């Protein structure tokens, strides 16, 4: 018999939102201390957190960050919040993030990947001229993703934890402030924007579909007419042939 608490609750699903990503900032030369590696230019932090700083330790036990192979001790384990690693560097690379869950969950760790971004991305910016690079700012560069971890059929013990701890409702910050804070861009308003964007896409696709449908009807009619015409002609030819034979 399975020990109590390990048994899974059928037909139940729970989810928890998480935000993972990086924040990087250029460190001006005057601020670089003696321990700052000479070839490094930025200080960055990779993190896994809850939305708007909400606690995730009730379901996350440990987070493992796998950095670039050039870093000493490239595998960093963080076993208590905040689940983050701060480092310095000069380049961008992909970080592997492994989220370990609390023992009550009885779940295997989940692996995520995130690309460290230390320079801001602006598609409208002109192509860089290597001779005259644009002046670098010390503004933080955020690159973060929102996702939801779905626990299907959680164990009884874990369900008890999930029922009492954690809040999944998205905070509302008002339409005007939807994207005001780059550190916390995920809120009710952003979600609404996203839904609207998808709905607009659906509308556009529906229009295309309607066009195609009309075209199909038109083509079907055209085909039917062609077939009818051919059959009529064939009948006529057959009739005239029979008349000739009889005569």
């Amino acid at each position, binding site marked *: 018999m399975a020990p109590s608490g390990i048994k899974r609750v059928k037909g139940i699903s729970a989810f928890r939102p998480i935000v993972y990503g990086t924040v990087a900032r250029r460190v001006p030369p005057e601020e670089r201390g003696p321990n700052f590696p000479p070839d490094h230019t930025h200080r960055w932090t990779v993190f896994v957190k809850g939305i708007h700083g909400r606690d995730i330790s009730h379901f996350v036990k440990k987070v493992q960050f796998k950095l670039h192979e050039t870093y000493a001790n490239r595998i960093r384990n963080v076993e208590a919040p905040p689940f983050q690693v701060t480092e310095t560097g000069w380049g961008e690379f992909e970080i592997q993030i492994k989220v370990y869950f609390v023992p009550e969950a009885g779940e295997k760790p989940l692996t995520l990947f995130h690309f460290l971004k230390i320079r801001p991305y602006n598609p409208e910016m002109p192509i860089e001229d290597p001779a005259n690079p644009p002046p670098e700012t010390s503004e933080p560069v955020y690159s973060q993703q929102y996702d939801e971890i*779905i626990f299907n059929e959680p164990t009884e013990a874990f369900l008890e934890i999930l029922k009492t701890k954690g809040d999944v409702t998205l905070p509302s910050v008002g339409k005007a402030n939807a994207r005001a804070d780059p550190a916390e861009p995920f809120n009710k308003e952003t979600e609404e924007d996203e839904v609207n964007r998808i709905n607009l896409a659906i509308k556009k696709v529906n229009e295309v579909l309607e066009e195609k449908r009309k075209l*199909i009807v038109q083509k079907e009619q055209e085909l039917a007419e062609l077939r009818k015409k051919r059959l009529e002609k064939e009948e006529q030819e057959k009739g005239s042939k029979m008349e000739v034979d009889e005569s």
Partner: protein
Amino acid sequence: MASKQDGLKRELIALLGNNGTAFSLSDFRVRVKKVSRPRKWTRTAAPHPTRKDSLTFSSWKPQGATSVYNPEAVPHESELTRLIAADRDIWAIDSDWPLDEIMYMLELWQAFDGRFFLVADRYNYQGKTRTVEQIKDCFYKCAQKSGAFRQSSVSKGFVNFNMEEAMLRKTLLASSLEKRTGDVEEADFLFSEYRRILAYQEKMIEERNALQDKLDLPVTPSNIHCFSGSHGLSYLSHSLLLSDKLKRKRQNPPQPQSEQPEKTHSRVHSESDHRKDKFSESSSNTKHGIGKVTKSHSGCSLRSVRCQFKGNATPKVLSLLSSLELASTVGMPTTETCSAFEVLQRQLHLVLDAKKMLDKLNHEIRTELARQPNS
């Protein structure tokens, strides 16, 4: 050292050794004695219980026995010969068997005590030979015609003698005896293969019939992309079966039973129902992100993974999205955005289906134009 034995015991010890299983030989010895004594069998008259006429029957009887051994008594050969001789006109009809030859055959039959194999072996009527089956056929026909067996229960078996069948059996037996191990194995293999194919065919017909029965449903307006592939039919059958099962479940909800174990089960069921209802209704569960699901696999996953395009049509969908200048990913995969995205996915598949349909129609129009008589 074991004492010297004799007779059967010695033979057994030689076979099994000194430590053989102990058993008594007395019963065995008696039986052997009884069985091993030969008895003389003699041909004796066997009166038939159902017959009222003067026809005499004969059969084999062991020496010392009080009753006739074989109840399947055949008419006395001399009787048959007498009958045939008395009514010659009946027998002259068959051109294949002249009356003289019949008489010759009966003589042989009499000489060899009705042993057909010997009759066939010694048969030499004016240089002509006959097979066992031919002789048997003739003999039984004669016996039938003569009316000797008409009232006998034994005659039924003889009347049913079919020469063609007997010949076929013989040929089959001869061919099977000629077979080598390899041939037998091959035949076995072919037979098993044949049976497998037949079973498969039956299964396929059954499945097809079941599917056709199920296809009497209204046409769905939703996406049928997943059914159009090479695995489409099996997928369709699977999903139809599933929906059928669900339908049946809905139609027959679990009834409360009077028996104790059933009671427990229903109690558990109602508890879980209650729990589920509680989950769906409670606002705290909405706050904690707990809800009901109809179909799920245990384990954890990311919602963003569910908002990705899957399947063979993915490149086409992506190119369609880029042609419409739409993003192919969800920036914030929440329940609402994902459900909206699923709708978008379905619509995109419909567009692809429509495109395919248009291409097909265009092709058909081109073909039709080429087939026009004046073209």
